[in-house]
């Protein structure tokens, strides 16, 4: 058996435990451990991506208990892609935190690693209850990270975030209980097979369970009406943490796609909850436009851009038989990286402005603000989807594969609202200034971290064709659930 699949879970788990053992506050040692772990994850993700790219779906039976009785980890193209995205985002986020943000509270590095463990595990697992457990791991770490650093704002936003997610976990458990009660299994592949044979009361109960799952995943993904926690929590969090959180909404989206593609793409339950998802996603998109325009702080504005990307993605998923999934995954890569970069950039701008921080009001000029303004300009172009950067490619691909007037109008209006809000924010931050500021200059490591994330956007434009082919291949593999079922269950499927 190939043991590499479990490495993305084991590496951060080991690093996190080592970091907990280190009690003497040797920051240099902690930083090196954290960064090494992230680098190892990146290398493993590349290796696993290469392995998955051949088209084979690799299954790892934990404790050698065969599915559906034991828990399995499954590596296909989709999970490999998400693992790679996590690793690419995590390294610069941690690098950014290593300039001093990590010292504002205890155990930042350990929590960061446990968060990555939860995210990687959620992408790999092939078992619904195990998905719940990894969700909890990533949430518990995220509670600590969201509260990292002090301040009443953070505690208030954190309390809402924690309470909402605990209610979400309770719903998740009820849904899992119903699924086990009706199908007698929690293995995703086995569940997908057994669900098709259900009739009568069991089928109704399963419908309820799946709709509850959509609610839970919608909460994680921040879909209307469950996104209200996101702007406060993300805008309040430390920059590096907010950048890492850019992947968290995508975990919800991943879980939705995974369960949907396996069990509900066709068969008796085909399209369960699909029309509701479609309308909710469109409403999310519309409300995110209002949020972007009304934001009083740059951090809140970027948070609403995250909500906007979620609306765009879920609408593309709900549109049809996973037809738009290829472009949607390209857009997912783009939006996660750019939003992460924007969160880091927001923090740099806030530091440069001193007292007024990232409030969108007239304030002191940023010391040597030229470099930051160029970065902000590029990031804004990329995130609203103007040519020539990756947002444009992603949006054009999405518009071509989702031929629906409502979606077209909303996506274009969303781009326009983002453009208006960001140009207004940019002119306020960089041009309408009163004298020279007393803020801090960005350190070189800060700029490296921001550049790492922002440079990926022009790269994604240059290599748009092969990348779109790649994401389309991922979607094609997902559209054929029999491959997954056969890999996990063997000849029984």
């Amino acid at each position: 058996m190939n043991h590499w699949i479990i490495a993305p879970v084991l590496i951060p788990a080991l690093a996190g435990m080592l970091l907990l053992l280190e009690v003497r506050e040797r920051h240099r040692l902690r930083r090196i451990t954290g960064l090494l772990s992230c680098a190892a994850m990146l290398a493993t993700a590349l290796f696993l991506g290469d392995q998955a790219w051949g088209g084979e779906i690799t299954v790892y039976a934990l404790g050698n208990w065969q599915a559906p009785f034991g828990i399995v980890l499954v590596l296909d193209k989709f999970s490999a892609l998400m693992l790679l995205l996590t690793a690419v985002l995590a390294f610069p986020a941690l690098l950014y935190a290593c300039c001093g943000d990590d010292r504002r509270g205890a155990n930042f590095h350990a929590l960061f690693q446990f968060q990555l463990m939860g995210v990687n595990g959620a992408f790999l697992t092939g078992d619904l209850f195990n998905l719940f457990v990894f969700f909890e791991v990533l949430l518990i770490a995220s509670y600590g990270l969201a509260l990292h650093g002090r301040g009443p704002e953070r505690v208030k936003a954190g309390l809402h975030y924690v309470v909402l997610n605990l209610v979400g976990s309770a719903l998740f458990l009820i849904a899992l209980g119903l699924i086990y009660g009706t199908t007698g299994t929690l293995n995703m592949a086995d569940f997908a097979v057994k669900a098709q044979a259900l009739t009568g009361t069991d089928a109704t109960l399963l419908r309820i369970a799946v709709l509850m799952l959509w609610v839970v995943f919608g909460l994680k993904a921040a879909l209307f009406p469950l996104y209200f926690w996101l702007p406060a929590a993300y805008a309040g969090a430390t920059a590096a943490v907010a950048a890492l959180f850019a992947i968290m909404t995508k975990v919800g989206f991943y879980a939705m796609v995974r369960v949907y593609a396996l069990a509900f793409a066709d068969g008796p339950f085909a399209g369960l909850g699909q029309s509701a998802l479609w309308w909710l996603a469109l409403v999310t998109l519309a409300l995110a436009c209002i949020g972007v325009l009304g934001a009083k702080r740059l951090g809140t504005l970027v948070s609403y851009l995250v909500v906007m990307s979620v609306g765009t993605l879920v609408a593309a998923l709900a549109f049809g038989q996973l037809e738009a999934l290829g472009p949607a995954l390209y857009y997912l890569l783009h939006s996660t990286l750019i939003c992460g970069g924007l969160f880091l950039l927001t923090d740099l701008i806030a530091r440069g402005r001193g007292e007024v921080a990232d409030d969108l009001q007239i304030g002191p000029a940023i010391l040597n603000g030229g470099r930051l303004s160029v970065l902000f300009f590029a990031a804004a172009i990329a995130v609203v989807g103007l040519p020539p950067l990756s947002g444009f490619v992603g949006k054009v691909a999405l518009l071509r594969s989702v031929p629906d007037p409502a979606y077209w109008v909303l996506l274009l209006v969303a781009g326009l609202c983002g453009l208006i809000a960001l140009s207004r924010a940019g002119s306020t931050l960089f041009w309408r200034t009163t004298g020279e500021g007393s803020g801090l200059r960005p350190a070189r490591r800060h700029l490296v971290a921001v550049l790492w994330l922002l440079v990926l956007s022009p790269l994604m434009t240059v290599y748009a064709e092969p990348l779109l082919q790649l994401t389309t291949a991922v979607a094609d593999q997902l559209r054929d659930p029999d491959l997954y079922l056969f890999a996990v269950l063997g000849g029984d499927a």
Partner: protein
Amino acid sequence: MELLVAIIIGVLVASGVYLCLRARTFPVVMGLTLLSYGVNVFLFAMGGLKMNQVAVVGMSPDPTDPLPQALVLTAIVIGFAMTAFLVVLALRSQGELHNDHVDGKPDDGGRS
């Protein structure tokens, strides 16, 4: 037996939801605790309810399902840890915001 368990779950979840909607942190913590109790009993019942049967195949003609017991144990551990965390968070919110309103607002004359 089924009816009794169903009523218990219903009462626990209903009280939990009611308390979760209160405006003070302590009732919310209590509400989440009750909610997780309700969910735990629900999980426990999901494999079917059987009286006086062991959970080992071969030891009894009609064994009860062992998996929900393992799952509920996981759920209890996670729920317990989260309640502890939430209590600490509520205390810190009380300390930093100087009141126990979930929105951190000043007291509005005891109306909530």
